[in-house]
């Protein structure tokens, strides 16, 4: 009997037991003999220069080992390029402790290293710093007149600039029967993974370090460290098997990595640097963004003109960009479009991709505008989407590799009960509460990057697969094991996957919903190469039955290779490895996406989100009582972990629409709620009935797995679906997020 394929099965997370027993080790969980603790000192001013830094008192405490600062540090690489990581935007990367200049509030300016955490933290309070302050600007709203076009750089490849204008927007808009224009404001947000950023660096002697880092890219951290500290790549090993959430915050090496490695190299001791929660607000964030949309439609509901303009925040030193305005024309085939995107430089740290960067921002504006159009046109919001359904990507004039968005609309609406929606705002009630239904579309690009993977058949006939990739909670370990199992026709119990280690074959940073596609493809490629190699070795065994056969001539199942036309003639993997002089059979393969083929198509996951809200109008209290998200993302490798990704995205959507915001005080140029008590992410009591549908979608183009990532898509449709539902419930359209009580009073 042949085994059921592992892909498609709701396999429970393979690391589950370790996670529920507290044995999964995160970056700060390594008890290393002689470990010393670093505590970071941050600038208390926003801009200026450090005039004096006095460490005398702190250094006099017994147990304080060293206090690093710009005046007390090893000489470092000074080329900007050497600080550039794989995800660096165009510009000049931040260089910790480089000089006395302060360029943002909370900038790390020193590191106390002491025998205990408590002592390091206390000593940090005794370090006296004097500053010469300079005027600064941190307010996006007050600086819109300085908006400019972003610089182009390497990162632009994955973040294309807005598509070219098409037709004549102004004319078409002014001639439209129905016109909607609106402004949208999104505030700053911080990723706030629950794990604090931490790095444990073990100095191994002779210019060699082993680093336990919180990162979304072990190789990215490895290259960064090697470049800056002038170490050989092979002497820098970065290990990160368990990452306590990241959501983009680990796409770039953060300053605790730099400080931990610097201290370990200087002191020749193992050093753990953990940021505290307030320090988690002193690096990348989702930038505040201001958007304006103007959509025009004809009497039939056809959108004829679309203008979407966005201005985002960036730092003075890098041009961080997001794809905010490119989405509407991928979804709606208007003949006249004008898309604009600009940046304003402010005295803040560079923004950083945060779950569904740009997409969740832009789609909120686009889908709210579509909703408003539906009221003006008196057409059901879902019907309006169907009227304007794009069979191809009009923005680039190319077909989709697959697009089952229509099925998302239909199945999502049916599961949700959209037909029960009374189109009239304020018409639906439950007790003393207003009830509103809202829906929105989601879209996220399905990218693939190059990666390597190693596959090894062991002497006991088991498969071992290796990649440097991390698993930030997405389920990477489990789905990679599933993919590998199917390649060799083995049960998943016979597969192990080693990951989260820069020593393993190269993988890019984990993010952008491209990990399954990227690393999964590499594993598939390596698996196929391993099959070939096993078959070739099998050909040398015994009477040569398997000699000169092709993969098509045989079956790989139940730990054996069998003839397709005579399945009883077979040879076990164990025997093949034995025939390989008893050496495990290994292959390493590099998998590169077929760019020539891929660029003929637009590739994207789609979703339709349906939301019910209850609004206690008198008091402004809003609850998302239930939501359904239907997703088209190609092959779903693991329905259990993929569903969790979508659920997580939906919770993020609720949070973005109704809960989280970083509060700034521009008088001081700083964030004021740098803690989890006042930075409100949802609690259990906020989350009610959530449902997920995966619609069937076959895609032979996107990659060999036919799979699109699901890390972002669950989030994207939710904020507009929620604000549309609030509008349906109350008649009030609120275009800035998050929506609080006060907005409804």
């Amino acid at each position: 009997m042949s085994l059921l394929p592992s892909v498609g099965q709701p396999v429970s997370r393979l690391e589950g037991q370790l996670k529920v027993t507290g044995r999964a080790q995160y970056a700060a969980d390594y008890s290393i003999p002689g470990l010393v603790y670093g505590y970071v000192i941050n600038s208390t001013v926003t801009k200026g220069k450090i005039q004096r830094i006095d460490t005398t008192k702190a250094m006099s405490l017994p147990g304080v080992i060293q206090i690093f600062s710009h005046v007390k540090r090893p000489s470092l690489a000074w080329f900007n390029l050497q600080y550039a990581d794989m995800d660096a935007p165009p510009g000049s990367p931040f260089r910790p402790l480089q000089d006395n200049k302060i360029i943002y509030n909370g900038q790390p300016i020193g590191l106390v290293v002491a025998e205990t955490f408590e002592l390091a933290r206390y000593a940090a309070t005794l370090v006296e710093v004097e500053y010469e302050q300079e005027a600064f600007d941190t307010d996006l709203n007050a600086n819109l007149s300085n908006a400019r076009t972003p610089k182009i750089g390497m990162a632009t490849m994955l973040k294309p600039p807005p598509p070219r204008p098409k037709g004549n927007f102004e004319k078409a808009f002014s001639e439209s029967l129905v016109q909607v224009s609106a402004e949208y404001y999104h505030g700053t947000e911080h990723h706030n993974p629950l794990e604090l950023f931490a790095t444990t660096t073990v100095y191994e002697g002779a210019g060699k370090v082993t680093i336990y880092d919180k990162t979304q890219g072990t190789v990215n951290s490895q290259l960064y460290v090697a470049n800056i500290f002038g170490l050989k790549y092979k002497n820098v090993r970065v290990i990160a098997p368990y990452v306590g959430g990241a959501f983009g915050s680990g796409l770039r090496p953060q300053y605790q990595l730099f400080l931990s490695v610097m201290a370990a190299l200087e002191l020749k001791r193992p050093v753990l640097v953990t940021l505290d929660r307030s320090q988690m607000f002193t690096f990348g964030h989702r930038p505040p963004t201001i958007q304006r949309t103007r959509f025009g439609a004809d009497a039939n509901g056809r959108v004829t003109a679309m203008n979407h303009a966005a201005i985002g925040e960036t730092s003075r030193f890098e041009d961080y960009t997001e794809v905010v305005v490119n989405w509407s024309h991928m979804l709606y085939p208007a003949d006249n479009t004008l898309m604009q995107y600009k940046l304003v430089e402010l005295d803040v740290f560079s923004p950083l991709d945060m779950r569904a960067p740009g997409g969740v921002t832009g789609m909120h504006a686009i889908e709210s505008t579509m909703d408003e159009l539906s009221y003006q046109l008196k057409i059901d919001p879902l019907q309006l989407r169907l009227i304007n359904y794009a069979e191809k990507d009009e923005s680039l004039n190319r077909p989709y590799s697959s697009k089952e968005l229509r099925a998302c609309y239909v199945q999502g609406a049916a599961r949700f009960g959209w037909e029960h929606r009374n189109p009239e705002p304020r018409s639906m009630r439950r007790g003393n509460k207003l009830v509103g239904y809202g829906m929105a579309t989601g879209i996220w690009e399905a990218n693939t990057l190059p990666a390597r993977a190693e596959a090894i058949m062991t002497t006991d006939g088991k498969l071992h697969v290796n990649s440097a990739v991390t698993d930030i909670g997405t389920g990477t370990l489990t789905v990679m094991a599933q993919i590998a199992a199917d390649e060799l026709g083995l049960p998943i119990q016979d597969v192990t996957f080693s990951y989260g280690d820069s020593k393993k074959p190269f993988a890019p940073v984990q993010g952008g919903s491209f990990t399954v596609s990227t690393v999964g493809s590499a594993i598939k490629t390596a698996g196929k190469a391993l099959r070939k190699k096993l078959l070739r070795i099998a050909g040398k065994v015994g009477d040569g039955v398997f000699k000169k056969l092709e993969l098509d001539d045989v079956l790989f199942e139940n730990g054996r290779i069998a003839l397709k036309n005579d399945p009883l003639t077979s040879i076990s993997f164990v025997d093949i490895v034995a025939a390989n002089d008893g050496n495990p059979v290994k292959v390493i393969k590099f998998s590169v996406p077929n760019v020539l083929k891929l660029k003929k198509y637009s590739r994207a996951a789609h979703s339709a989100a349906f939301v019910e809200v209850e609004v206690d109008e008198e008091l402004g209290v809003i609850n998302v009582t239930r939501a359904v998200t239907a997703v088209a993302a190609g092959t779903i490798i693991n329905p259990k972990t993929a569903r969790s990704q979508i659920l997580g995205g939906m919770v993020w959507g609720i949070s973005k629409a109704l809960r989280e915001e970083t509060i700034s005080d521009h008088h001081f140029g700083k964030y004021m709620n740098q803690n989890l008590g006042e930075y409100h992410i949802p609690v259990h009591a906020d989350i009610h009935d959530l449902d997920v549908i995966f619609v069937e979608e076959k895609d032979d183009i996107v990659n060999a797995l036919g799979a699109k990532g699901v890390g972002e898509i669950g989030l994207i449709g939710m904020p507009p679906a929620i604000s549309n539902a609030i509008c349906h419930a109350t008649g009030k359209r609120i275009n800035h997020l998050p929506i609080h009580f006060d907005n409804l009073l």
Partner: protein
Amino acid sequence: MITDYPYKQTESSTDFTPRPITLHINNAPVQLEVLPWVSLLDGLRDYAGLTGTKKGCDHGQCGACTVICDGDRILSCLTLAVMKDGSDITTIEGIAHEGVLHPLQKAFIEHDAFQCGYCTPGQICSAIGMFQEGKAKTRDEVKELMSGNLCRCGANTNIIDAIMEVKAQMSHE
């Protein structure tokens, strides 16, 4: 008690001599040498080497450090190790017995009630503490009484599903 004025620039104690304390962690006495400023959380992690208990905020705002102390679920970050001298403490490492997972641990795996896994030790200890309190009857009450444990991955519905399943099993017993 903590009114802080007139603000006194204190000469901090220069006595850095640790004191011995005994914590009964997961049914075994553990002797530690700690200064008073060591939180119970850091005492468990840095001094007792039990890193299953997690630090997510260190200020009582996330629940990741939840342990069960003398029968009650508490936040180990907001108490001092010296204050718990002689106490019985159960951490996530002590929830399974002789390698057999607690039903809630099994339910967490089955319901995929975690993604990154960082809040998980706190969620599990907190839910077990909640079971012992016996105050949560309905799903809404469970959600309210579990709201001291944040999950940034958004596994909320799966976490509550896992807890409700085990709660139902317990009421049948």
